[in-house]
């Protein structure tokens, strides 16, 4: 069965369908490279629950007992998970049938999968284009019909971005709603697991399974998670007098013309459905780029400090004089360029003499960005706009551009820094046939509004994914 564009309702879930999809995905992946490893012996796929028999996949930065969890990096190439991430555990408890683990930028550092040590994931809509990142493998797996849904993770725009570029739905809830336990850490104040699929209904259902406080993640939030799928509904926007904010900074000359036009068309559809569109003025996204660059890299340098190649991971053959030299060799040979560059920048921003000017200052500006949103949400219920400033660029785009990820994510970084729930839905294609994504985000904990707004578009307008 061709799963392209299919939702959970469209398929007849079964163990046979899972096995069949695994076989066809292995073949299709020769062109796409969405997967780092496949679940060849169908481990854990015979469970029972709402997700049983539905072919799915999970990003390779989630621990899953007995599978390699590389986080897209050579340094963890042979690391076998001794435990399940909370998200993995909850999926398996609901019967999830994971056919494999998807490609990502190494340690999720990037927006293209070009920094993956296992090769770039190609965009199923055009094999010369990137799928986006860092959850590029997950987005491509869904877009190419290799999974009905896939689990990703987002730090800036790593779920929304690849979803936009691959023409699928990508949803990331409030920071802390989904546990980070067992996910290879990137930026601990920013990382959040999310879901990619072909419909809002499906991301809602899977999110319902994985959401909720976790005793193993002290930053997971105590408020009970809504039953996203059960409560999913279309909204009568006029009756509810819903106001959607359109930031003028999201449509300026930094945004590709065709992307801006498609986003405006989607805005008009919401207006036709009865929403009031309010132009709002937010802080320039360049400040979010700067804050994200500093905060995320600082957290990266701290998180990657634990990887030393002693207990697990890449171990250099070269002879070292001291144990610290051994660490430096393991890390120098095991990490790729991006991880080294980010760790070094982060360490610099945290170092004595620069801490106040970079890290502390960035944390203060982060407060200003959050306050900026609070002010905006006094006027509007949710904020909308294009997800990415362009459609998927050509493979090779990141060469010689150490800030590609930050710049590509300029429209997703502000909401990520504020930990807001957000979704990207497909709203058309450009003249090259490449998908365009449209994002919706709302105040913290208002996932249901975000999902309902997207669902309203899906049902009333549709996007033919």
């Amino acid at each position, binding site marked *: 069965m061709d799963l392209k564009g299919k939702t959970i309702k469209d398929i007849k879930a079964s163990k046979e369908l899972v096995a069949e999809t695994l076989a066809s995905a292995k073949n299709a992946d020769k062109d796409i490279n969405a997967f780092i490893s496949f679940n060849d012996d169908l481990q854990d796929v015979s469970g029972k629950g709402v997700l049983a028999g539905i072919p799915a996949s999970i990003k390779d930065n989630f621990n899953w007992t007995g599978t390699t969890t590389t986080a897209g990096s050579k340094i963890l190439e042979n690391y076998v998970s001794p435990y399940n991430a909370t998200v993995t555990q909850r999926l398996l408890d609901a019967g999830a049938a994971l056919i494999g683990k998807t490609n990502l930028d190494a340690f999720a550092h990037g927006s293209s999968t070009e920094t993956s040590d296992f090769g770039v994931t190609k965009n199923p809509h055009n094999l010369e284009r990137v799928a986006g990142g860092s959850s590029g493998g997950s987005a491509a797996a869904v877009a190419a019909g290799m999974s009905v849904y896939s689990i990703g993770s987002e730090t800036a725009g790593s779920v929304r971005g690849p979803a936009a570029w691959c023409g699928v739905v990508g949803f990331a809830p409030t920071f802390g709603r989904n546990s980070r336990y067992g996910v290879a850490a990137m930026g601990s104040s920013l990382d959040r697991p999310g879901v990619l699929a072909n419909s809002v209904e499906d991301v809602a259902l899977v999110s319902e399974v994985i959401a909720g406080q976790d005793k193993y993640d002290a930053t997971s939030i105590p408020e009970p998670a809504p039953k996203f799928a059960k409560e999913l509904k279309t909204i009568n926007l006029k009756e509810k007098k819903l106001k959607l904010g359109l930031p003028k900074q999201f449509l300026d000359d930094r945004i590709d013309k065709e992307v801006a036009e498609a986003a405006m068309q989607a805005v008009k559809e919401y207006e036709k459905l009865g929403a009031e569109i309010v132009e709002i003025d937010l802080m320039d996204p360049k400040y979010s780029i700067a804050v994200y660059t500093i905060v995320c890299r600082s957290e990266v340098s701290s998180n990657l400090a634990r990887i030393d190649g002693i*207990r697990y991971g890449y171990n250099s053959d070269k002879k070292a004089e001291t144990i610290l030299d051994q660490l430096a060799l393991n890390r120098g040979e095991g990490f790729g360029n991006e991880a080294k560059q980010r760790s070094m920048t982060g360490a610099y921003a945290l170092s004595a003499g620069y801490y106040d000017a970079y890290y502390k200052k960035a944390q203060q500006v982060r407060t200003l960005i959050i306050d900026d949103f609070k002010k905006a949400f006094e006027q509007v219920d949710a904020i909308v706009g294009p997800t990415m400033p362009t459609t998927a660029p050509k493979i090779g785009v990141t060469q010689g551009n150490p800030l590609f990820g930050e710049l590509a994510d300029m429209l997703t970084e502000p909401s990520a820094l504020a930990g807001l729930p957000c979704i990207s839905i497909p709203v058309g294609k450009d003249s090259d046939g490449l998908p365009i994504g449209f994002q919706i985000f709302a105040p913290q904990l208002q996932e249901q509004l975000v999902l309902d707004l997207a669902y309203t578009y899906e049902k009333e307008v549709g996007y033919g994914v």
Partner: protein
Amino acid sequence: MSKQIDDKVTKKVADLIKINIPEEEIPNYTQQLNTVLEAADDVSELDTKGVEITSQTHGLKNVWREDEPEEGLDMSKYPNTQNWDGKYFVVKKVL
């Protein structure tokens, strides 16, 4: 801020975080770091006098739980290294 860093600083930072970088690659990293720091410098344009820092977006503070013993990981099953001798990680002799 805005001051460009040089190869000496790059080497110092790499050494600080224990990442061995071959001498010939240092200038390339210096260049990358300068590009990144230039973008980061935009934060200096804003007045943040008296502004609180944000380290946790949901406002959580001091999350506690009971300190109860639980079964740990069974290292014999997935030791992740050929250097696991059943009790210890065996590291290379460095002296």
